[in-house]
């Protein structure tokens, strides 16, 4: 079962990127508190993203002719790992770098590639992804936002919701219906490039339970789009979206969302001289699980590097990874609370509670746990 997943190593050419990224990451987090760093891949800093772009650390998997680095998927693994290890703010470029650029490379027109890819690689254009709608969550094929043909292109109407970084992004790549009705399911869906400053687009922040406006809802009211707003095939949106899932689901970001909290907790243990007993056992549990999950993520990345599309393996890696991430605040909170007389730094306390509150999102974003397990079950021959 899943015999293709073998112990793999990151190639030396990709490892060679590590020292440079480390330097950038260290600079970026110097003046950031634990509470900010633990935001991990939802921490936003456009200047930092641009500095990564200037240093050639974005768009690594894009061909050089489009301003990319000409590397394979392991380069991104190394860069992302180093950035997340210390909690550098990666949100500004995150979606463009991980998803929009590969999508445009694979399905975009030559003109779209030439216009967008170099700017993404330089950190000059930021993207968000328009998937969920008020009536469409896990059942993505039921989206109702609609693009209609006009003499000059397309007219877009509808609404997207729970969109990360939409407040600051330049473009959304939206999955909308371009023909037929919701009853046609996967058929008749297309992806469009929507400039978020265009007339008729309204972006409203949604405050989450941590007090942050990380999400937004976006309204399209007769938004006029050109012919060149369509990405890939008209009606091919579903296929294009699912082809990217293996990339979206297997990365180290599905394991590392809470690593900053682990390290802050270890600092707390050291400050309180708790280096043995139950605390050491828990630290060992985190360390062992992290090690093996990382190897699993690397082995899935090796399949991607070999040109395969390991959607089932990526689902498996993501479900295990996010379950681990979610266990971190639960177990650390119990450890902390089992020493009620111990002094707790307020910053550390806020960091823990932030992760506790936001952790349910780890297994929602990028495909819910139940959807992923359904994909795995199909892979096991059960459906």
């Amino acid at each position, binding site marked *: *079962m*899943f015999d293709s*997943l*073998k*112990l*793999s*190593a*990151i190639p030396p050419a990709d490892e060679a990127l590590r020292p440079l990224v480390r330097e950038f990451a260290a600079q970026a987090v110097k003046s950031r508190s634990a509470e900010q760093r633990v935001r991990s891949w939802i921490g936003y800093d456009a200047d930092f993203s641009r500095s990564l772009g200037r240093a050639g650390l974005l768009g690594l998997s894009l061909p050089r002719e489009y301003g990319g680095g000409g590397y394979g998927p392991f380069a991104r693994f190394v860069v992302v*790992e180093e950035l*997340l*290890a*210390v909690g550098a703010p990666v949100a500004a470029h995150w979606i463009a770098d991980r998803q929009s650029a590969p999508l445009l490379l694979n399905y975009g027109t030559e003109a779209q590639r030439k216009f967008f890819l170099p700017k993404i690689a330089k950190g000059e254009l930021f993207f968000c992804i328009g998937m969920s709608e008020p009536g469409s969550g896990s059942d993505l094929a039921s989206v109702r936002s609609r693009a209609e043909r006009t003499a000059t292109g397309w007219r877009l109407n509808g609404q997207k919701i729970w969109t990360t970084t939409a407040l600051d992004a330049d473009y959304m790549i939206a999955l909308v219906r371009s023909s037929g009705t919701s009853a046609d399911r996967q058929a008749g869906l297309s992806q469009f490039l929507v400039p978020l400053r265009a007339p008729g687009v309204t972006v409203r922040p949604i405050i989450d339970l941590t007090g942050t406006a990380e999400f937004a809802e976006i309204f399209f009211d007769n938004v006029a789009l050109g012919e060149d707003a369509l990405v890939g095939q008209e009606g091919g949106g579903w296929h294009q979206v699912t082809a990217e899932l293996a990339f979206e689901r297997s990365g180290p970001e599905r394991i*590392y969302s809470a*690593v900053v909290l*682990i*390290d802050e907790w*270890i600092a707390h*243990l*050291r400050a309180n001289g708790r*280096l*043995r007993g139950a*605390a*050491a*056992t*828990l*630290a*060992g*549990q*985190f*360390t*062992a*699980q*992290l*090690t*093996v*999950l*990382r*190897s*699993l993520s690397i*082995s899935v990345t090796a399949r991607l590097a070999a040109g395969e599309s390991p959607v089932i393996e990526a689902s*498996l890696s993501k*479900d*295990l990874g996010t379950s681990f991430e979610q266990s971190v605040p639960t177990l650390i909170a119990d450890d902390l609370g089992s020493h009620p007389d111990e002094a707790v730094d307020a910053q550390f306390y806020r960091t823990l509670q932030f992760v506790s509150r936001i952790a349910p999102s780890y297994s929602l974003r990028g495909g819910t746990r*139940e959807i*992923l*397990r*359904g994909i*795995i*079950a199909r892979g*096991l*021959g*059960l*459906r």
Partner: protein
Amino acid sequence: MEDFDLLQSFERMLDDASPLEVVRAIEAGGSAGALWATLEESGFLDLLVPESAGGAGIALGDAAPLIEALGAWLVPVPVAQTMAARALLAKAGHDVPPGPILLATAAASRTGPLPFAALAQYALVELNGQVILTRLGTDVLHPAKLHASRTASLTWAHEPDVLAKLELPNGALRALGAVLRAAEIAGIAGKALEITIAYANERVQFGKPIGKQQAVQQQLAVMAEHAVLARMAGRLGCAAGLPPLRDAAATAKQVASSAVPVITSIAHAVHGAIGISEEYRLQLYTRRLYEWRLADGSESYWAGLLGASRLRSDAATSIDFVRGASEPK
């Protein structure tokens, strides 16, 4: 693919030598003599022995799929341990005795329960800080008298006969045992998953196979995840050499042992009552998993050691620590 051929011929040998009837008979108290003779004759027992000493010279990392197969076939004698002991003895220039060799660690002249110890003729044992090869007699073996199990603990009332002495770091034998156990857990778990999926596709309730029920599918997905995780853990451990470094062994066994309760509970839940009958084969796998989980240290034992090492380390972040511990060499 040479490795693939090696695995295939190993599995064919196990098909013939260790079918489930043989497993059941030996667990019930039967002789393992014929099985051992076949294993000895196959040459596979010298798989890890250096070529210069007449073995196949395969690295433990490359042999991991074969160790997993020993688990999947439920081979009811300590084969992986014998392979590893033979390699260590041969590397140190010692003669290798015939017969099953146990790996053991004994503080204060005794060990905890050791699976299949009752069938071993020798033990490579870290006994009060010294690693020695010694013969096991009935004076040393204390069977656990568990149903369908050949588990026994070892107690030395007198100084043991020392057949050979090895220079190994303290804890190395337990770490090695843990890595082999982790790889075997992966093999057993993989087979238990196969059996459970097949059953879910066969068993009809409410007019359709239970495998069509989402509640069952979700559980089997979780079982598969943990089987894959255990396999990754065993492979990482095996890649860490012979004997492995302690942190690598700790990682492998912590994760593999943690997977056991998830895997066994889902396998039994999906099977329903048939799963706990003696006649049905699932129990052969789950019983083995329960014993393997704690043999050579459970998840918390290894987590404690690994955690102490993490808390002592000067790694800047957890990821730095993990990278140091997990890059395949």
